[in-house]
């Protein structure tokens, strides 16, 4: 049995999956003042009377960190930056206290100017005086050589509660994003720690022997203990849950569009040969671009509860939502009212919905039914247009080799997978607007929780070997070790997979050997004065996001 819980801003869904089918489903309102209480309530209800020994995993997707950031309920953070030469670092000072330190590392990981101990000591004193307990230490090119970040930490007093070192978050280059990610990681650490403790307690009280996992924005999971070092990775995992849910409900091997149609928004994602696309950089949260790896997802302000207006004979839908549908006591006409008027949906007060569409129809010179039809058609067309624009952008992403320019791999969706409550009702309009088959899996309404339940652990790491300098660096693991001048690509790949395996075993108990893969490998000769002086080897290895496909057709719900 698999347990999945997806906490959304409004609702929390929990599902129990048994023998490939969803055997239980519990939906409750998310209590923004008590996330832990919400999760406990949902799990208690879901697991009531269940033989807990049969539960193989519990996966949770939570908005706790996202919410802490959005509402500003975060801990003050002291930021110690080593920007070196380059851009003006002034806009990166997002901490409550910020220190720009001397010292620099270059693109090859060579220290080009030293740290100044007095500056660090001074920062330490000021942080202590201000009572700041959470720090983030980030240097430019620290992923190429973490020694300065580590040295800064060692020069500080020992009594801080939580310190994020930039190089441990991601091997990707992007100093501003590394700064913001490290800042956020330290800012939510305390909130997250109390959440994690409460969940662990709950699981223990229940007598469960399994370790709960937390869903990440990349569609994978990690154990609750691993997540405490990197709470920032749990932000914005909701869209990933729905994408993984769609994949569990409807595994495909083609290029496809995934639509999650909700009340306020429609979230759009894409599959390339059945594999979800990633955000090229990382997600952005409240204006902070981060290095948090995430599945690509675009939120369009168009959903079942979007307000419908007419202005000079032109119809507009969204992007704002003023409340529920007219039929459910809301203030304006919505697509939901159009569905009710056309008899496709049976909720609320039908006369209220019809009255709204009659008024709208009068402004447009249409009958209420025609007006309702036009609203749904326009909604589908706007979604399809947005998808096409996104695809154009994705297909036009820069590439850096001749081979890639010539191959020009383009994503051409062959089908649309639509989930979310209004999805089955809008399918005919979507099919017309996309000119593609639209599949609405059963259980589309609880896809997010299914996605959470069936997602598997993911992780990645970066390995850089510089044979001229004779060093190998794996930033995410904090490894920097000597290598001989003869070190080659094959050795580097082998080492990367070994390290990935041990990293993976820390995330989960059961390693699926065949899921470890090298996703990038590059070797550049380094030449000095017309002689090759060494090799610059760059490798990325990952365990890619994947789901256990759901077999049943969902009649059990």
């Amino acid at each position, binding site marked *: 049995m698999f347990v999945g819980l997806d906490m959304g801003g409004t609702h929390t869904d929990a599902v129990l999956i048994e023998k490939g089918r969803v055997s239980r489903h519990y939906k409750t309102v998310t209590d923004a003042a008590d996330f832990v209480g919400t999760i406990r309530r949902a799990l208690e209800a879901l697991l009531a009377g269940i033989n807990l020994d049969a539960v193989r995993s519990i996966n949770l997707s939570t908005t706790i960190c996202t919410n802490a950031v959005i509402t500003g309920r975060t801990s003050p953070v002291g930021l110690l930056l080593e920007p070196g030469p380059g851009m003006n670092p002034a806009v990166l000072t997002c901490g409550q206290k910020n220190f720009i330190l001397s010292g*620099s590392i270059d693109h090859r990981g060579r220290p080009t100017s030293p740290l100044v101990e007095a500056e660090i000591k001074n920062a330490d004193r000021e942080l202590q005086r201000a009572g700041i307990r959470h720090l983030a230490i980030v240097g430019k090119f620290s992923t190429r050589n973490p020694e300065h970040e580590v040295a800064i930490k060692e020069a500080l007093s020992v009594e801080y509660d939580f310190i994020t070192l930039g190089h441990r978050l991601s091997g990707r280059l992007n100093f501003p994003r590394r700064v913001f990610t490290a800042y956020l990681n330290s800012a939510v650490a305390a909130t997250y720690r109390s959440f994690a403790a409460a969940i662990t307690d709950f699981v223990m009280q229940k007598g469960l022997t399994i370790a709960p996992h937390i869903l990440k924005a990349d569609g994978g999971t990690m154990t609750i203990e691993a997540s405490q070092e990197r709470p920032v990775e749990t932000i914005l995992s909701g869209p990933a849950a729905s994408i993984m849910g769609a994949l569990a409900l409807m595994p495909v091997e083609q290029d496809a569009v995934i639509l999650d149609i909700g009340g306020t928004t429609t979230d759009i994602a894409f599959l390339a040969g059945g594999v979800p696309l990633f955000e090229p950089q990382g997600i952005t949260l409240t204006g902070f671009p981060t290095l948090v790896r995430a599945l690509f997802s675009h939120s369009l302000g168009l959903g079942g509860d979007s307000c419908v207006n007419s202005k000079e004979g032109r119809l507009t839908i969204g992007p704002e939502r003023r409340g529920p549908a007219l039929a459910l006591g809301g203030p304006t006409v919505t697509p939901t009212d159009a569905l009710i008027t056309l008899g496709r949906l049976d909720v609320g007060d039908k006369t209220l919905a019809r009255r709204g569409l009659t008024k709208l129809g009068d402004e447009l010179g249409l009958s209420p039914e025609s007006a309702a039809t036009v609203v749904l058609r326009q909604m589908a067309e706007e979604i399809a247009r947005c998808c096409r624009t996104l695809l154009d952008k994705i297909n036009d992403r820069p*590439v*850096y080799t001749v*081979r890639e*320019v010539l191959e020009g791999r383009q994503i051409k969706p062959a089908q649309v997978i639509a989930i979310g409550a209004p999805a089955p009702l809008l399918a005919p309009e979507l099919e017309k607007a996309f000119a593609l088959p639209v599949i609405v899996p059963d259980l589309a309404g609880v896809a997010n929780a299914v996605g959470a339940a069936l997602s598997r652990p993911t992780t990645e790491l970066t390995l850089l070997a510089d044979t001229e300098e004779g060093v190998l660096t794996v930033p995410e693991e904090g490894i920097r070790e000597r290598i001989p001048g003869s070190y080659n690509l094959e050795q580097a790949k082998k080492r990367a997979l070994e390290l990935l395996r041990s990293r993976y075993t820390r995330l989960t108990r059961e390693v699926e050997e065949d899921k470890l893969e090298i996703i990038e490998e590059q070797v*550049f000769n380094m030449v000095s004065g017309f002689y090759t002086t060494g090799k610059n080897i760059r490798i990325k290895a990952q365990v890619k996001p994947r789901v256990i496909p759901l077999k049943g057709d969902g009649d059990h719900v």
Partner: protein
Amino acid sequence: MYKASRRIGLVFFPAFDWAISPTHPEREERLLYTQDQVLEEGILDIEGIREYRPHLAAVADVERVHVCVPDVMSRVTESHLIAAGGAIVAAEAVLKGEVDRAFAIVRPPGHHAMRIVHGARGFCTINIEAIMIEYLRRHYGNKRIAIVDTDCHHGDGSQDIYWHDPDTLYISIHQDGRTLYPGTGFLNEFGGPNAFGYNLNLPLPPETGEEGFLYALEHCILPVLDDFKPDLIINSAGQDNHYTDPITNMRFSAQGYARLNDRLQPHIAVLEGGYSIEGALPYVNVGIILAMAGLDYTYVREPDYNPARVAQSPKVRDYIARLCEETYQAWRRRDELREEFIRDQKEISRRRQIYYDTEGLLENQEETTLVCHACGGLSWIDSRTDRGSHVLAIFIPRDACPRCREEGHNLFERSSRQTYRDGVFLQDRVADRLFTK
């Protein structure tokens, strides 16, 4: 977060899978560390900075500029077409108004490629700026264009291509040809008879520092641009004036490049040379991008920068001051000087030897130009190589008058493959076609 005050388009094409040869300076990792620096600075996240994907230039885009012997595809690799296509993508972003400025950081470079192409010269096979410029004129209307070539080597290819074009002002600032490849680019190379004065060379002495470059900009280049009033300014952005460059002898720095671009504000910059791939390129490219975007570049500095490394001697300073004065005066008197140059000649010929260093091939050219007061004038080149190749290439300019165009076609008709056994080529820019036989 950062926000650019001018919208910038970047085409970044490092061609990580292409090199002239494994230890050649123009090789795979030439832009690797630039890419590292650009990514690490988060430049692509800046609001107003947009990265574009390069496309392949078409064979017709190359033929609009070059006569490749025997044809385009025997001379170029895909990487050349992508570098040219990348420059076109950058330029179109500006012309379409999607961005205010664009920078094509592509390789391989192109400014040593001349009108006739028998092979590669100075790491260049086709002239990516010229292909870009003629593409723009074909698709966006004829523009007055100034090319400011800041590569340390004289852009003899660009000079050759625009030698007869009064609508294209070519200004090159480079290390004196007596001390560096390709050994050209002197004051007396002033343009063809119908475009006399529209080719300006500022050969700077070795060890010219930041001060000298900026002096030449302020006291010669900018005043000439003020007179010429171009619709577009293109920077052939060679970065080999850097004090760490292994194949040149200048003392320019990333700060200097950034300040130069801040003042010049080219609409489009296209990367040319620059082979200090670790010590210079990452910093110079970031400096140029920031300067073009109107962002603060004062923190951009090489790890080993110090003022002594970029200082120049008073002798150099005095020399440059005289050079700038002389060049500017010549530019002012260009019409007068043209009359003296032409006197009453109907056509003007010159003989040249062109060396293709990559293949070790020597070409002998005899070029003839009709003196014309109505257009850039018909010209034709009789070209022989020391490998025995012999071709005739005829060039009808974009704005050709009826007489020059007719004479060009007549010459093509008259010339036979028996005389020119490796081909007769007619580049008719009016018809936008290359005829061959």
